[in-house]
Every structure is written in C-alpha cells, then in structure tokens.
C-alpha cells in the first residue's frame, strides 16, 4: 500500500472517477504550486471499484462549479488540524459562468467581448448544458 503523509490543513478531493485525476490536477494548476500535493490514481474503492484522489496540503480556493462540471462524483473533504471538519458532495452545477466558451460560430458570444458567458443545465440525465445566448448544446466529457 502506498503511504502518503496525512494533511494538517487542506483539502482532499475524493471519489474522482478513475482516469480523471490527472486532468483535474492539471486543471487546478496543482503542477505549478510549491506546497505539498499528491495525485493518487487507481485507489481501490468500495463505491466506485477504482478511484483517483488528490491531496492538497494548503488552504486553497476551488471553483466548485468547474470541479462539478469535470466530475460530479467528487467529494471534497476539508481537513483542519489533521481532522475532517467538513465533507462537500459535488453535483452537476445548474449553471456555469465564465468557464465554457460557445462553439457555435453563429452565436453572438463569438463576435462580442463577453467574459461571463453562462451555460445552463438543460438535461441532468444526459449532462446537457446549453449556451445562454444561442442554446447550443454542450456535453462535458463523459465519465
């Protein structure tokens, strides 16, 4: 069993769908920070069979909408003084703002400078989001 030191004060991103850990690690730019982080892949899980997890030994602000969009299965475990003080179960956000860009060339967001384009969740089952301006569907990567 791989041994990774416990966190004093920080966050564990748990229940990441196996295979997505690296992508999330990169998305959070954890490969650029100078504090302690760990990406652990293919951990045995009763719930998922296999999972990835990320340990961050620091207090950081995470964009929960972006994380939920990448993998709605994630649980965030908040650690203080080596104890778990909170668990946050993520889900698909109802709306994401400023994260996605519309790919429809006929959409107004492609010609005007708009920083905060919203996509709204149109169908939770199919994980379909739609651009607030042109309703073009967008499907986050299937997990």
């Amino acid at each position: 069993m791989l041994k990774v030191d416990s966190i004093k004060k920080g966050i564990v991103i748990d229940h990441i769908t196996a295979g997505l850990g690296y992508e999330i690690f990169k998305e959070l730019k954890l490969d650029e920070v100078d504090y302690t982080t760990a990406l652990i892949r293919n951990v045995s899980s009763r719930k998922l069979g296999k999972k990835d997890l990320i340990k961050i030994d620091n207090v950081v602000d995470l964009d929960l909408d972006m994380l939920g969009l990448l993998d709605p299965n994630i649980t965030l475990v908040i650690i203080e003084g080596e104890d778990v003080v909170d668990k946050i179960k993520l889900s698909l956000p109802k709306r994401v703002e400023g994260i996605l860009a519309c790919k429809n060339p006929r959409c107004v967001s492609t010609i005007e400078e708009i920083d905060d384009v919203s996509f709204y969740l149109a169908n939770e089952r199919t994980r379909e989001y739609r651009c607030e301006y042109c309703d073009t569907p967008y499907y986050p990567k299937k997990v």
Partner: protein
Amino acid sequence: MIKGRHIIEPTDLSINELNQLCILASKIEANPDDYLDALKGKLLATLFYEPSTRTRFSFEAAMLRLGGQVIGFSEPNSSSVSKGESIGDTIRTIGCYADAAVMRHPKEGAPKLASKYSNIPVINAGDGGHQHPTQTLTDLHTIKSLKGNISGNVIGFCGDLKFGRTVHSLVKALSRYEDLTFVFISPPELGMPSYILEELTDHRVIEISSMEEILPELDILYMTRIQRERFFNEEDYLRLKGYFILTKKKLLLAKEDMIVMHPLPRVDEIHTSVDTDSRAVYFQQAKFGMFIRMALILKLMKGDDHA
C-alpha cells in the same frame, strides 16, 4: 405585468399573458380608432442588423397606428455599428432616445445580450436561426382568432422541420397547451430535431413523410418552405418536393374548416390557386401579426392602461 419587460423568446410570456395580448389585439382590431393616440409622444427604435422588410414594416406599422413614432436603421452600414460599436454600447445609447427597441440580428443571442445592458424593453425580431417570438405570437393569435381555441386541435407542420426557426418556436410555445396532436410532415432528412420531440411527451405526435393521407385529420396545416440547398443532391429535391407542395387538388381532402398558415415569404410550397380558398389564411396571418405587435408594444410601454 408585461410593462418594461424584454421579449427575447416566446416563453418569456406566460399563457395568461399571451391570452391578455390576444384579447387586446382583438380589441384594437375591432376598434382601431380608439388607439390612434395611445402611444402619442413615444418612440420605438428598430435596430435591423440584417434586412427584413416584412417584420420591420409590421413593427413600424404597429407603432405608427398607435400614434407613436419610429427611429432606427434597416441595415448596419448606415449606423455606428459599421464603425465597430458593440451591441451593449448601441443599446445604451438608443435607450437615451427611445422607449423600446426592436432588434433583428444575424447572430444568435444578440437581442439577449442587448437586454442585459438595456434600460428600455428589447424585443427580439429574429436572431439568426434561433428565436423569433413575435412570429410565434402572430401564429398563436391567428389560431386563437380563427379556431377559437388553441387546445384540442390537430396541427400539421409541413416542410423543412429540421432548420425551421419559426416552426421550432411555435411548437415549443404550443407544447405548453393541453390536448394537442402534432403531425410532422417532412422528408426523413428534414425531420423535427429530437430535442424538440423530447419536449412533447405529454402530447400525441405523428411523424409522416406525405401530406395526403393525414390531410383529412388536420384542423390546422402550417406550411413552410423546403429549401433546395438543404438537400444532398438535386435528384432528391426534385423527387421529394412534390410531397410537400399544397395544391388545390390536395386541399379537396381537407376539412372544410381547416386553416392553412404560412409565415411568408412563400416560394412554391403553396400553389397560387390555393390563395382564393377560404381556408388559406396566410395573408390574414400577416394582419394578425400587426395587431398582436400593436398589443405587445402597447403593453410594454403603457402596461394595462389601455387594456
């Protein structure tokens, strides 16, 4: 309360608000002289970033018949848009002069973007292939006026159902009413998109590729144009187009009180011999369009004062 709102898509209005608009439109039609000065001193801006004679004339006629006045442009080259002005800046400037703005734009979502910056009501007069809410209001008002009710009808949609913005908006608006049967008549490659069919699970839906066999069942036939360029090849177009052209002979199969609607402009999907049939209501439909736009502008600018 409709006053001061933006109208970007048909569902921005509740069924109750749609009913109120139709009632007001009928009142205006019955007694137009009562409304000659209803919007005296008010200004409507028509911002047409692409040409549209029909819709622009309908809005301008509506405003002028209410005693108001119109400013605007009918193509962007004659405005500061040609200098690269953003939609947000244009609408905020227009908001200093006018009491409401009508916008047509080739880019989808442009009127919605304008509404985010605007302190005056913005009415979407068509944004690319996306939404055209006042055409939908026109269609609903036509059905209510001529059939009495929207619910309880068997409505056929014929032609290019895949790319037809008018049809998509109308079907979405109709899906909020009860007891409707939707009949979609089109070549398989131009059928109704699945995301729209998914919204019709509470209704009866029939998909068919020839109009003759279903014509006797219909209360309303909504015709749209089949565009030659939508087909993969010329042979398919020539082979299939006949199935989707309404002729006087085909109309013999239809009910006596069926109505034939069309958003116009028509090309050859309705033979001109049909025009004299009392069931052909497409030119009447354009008139209903002006009255419902009058009702909408009046409500947006004055609220219930003239209702």
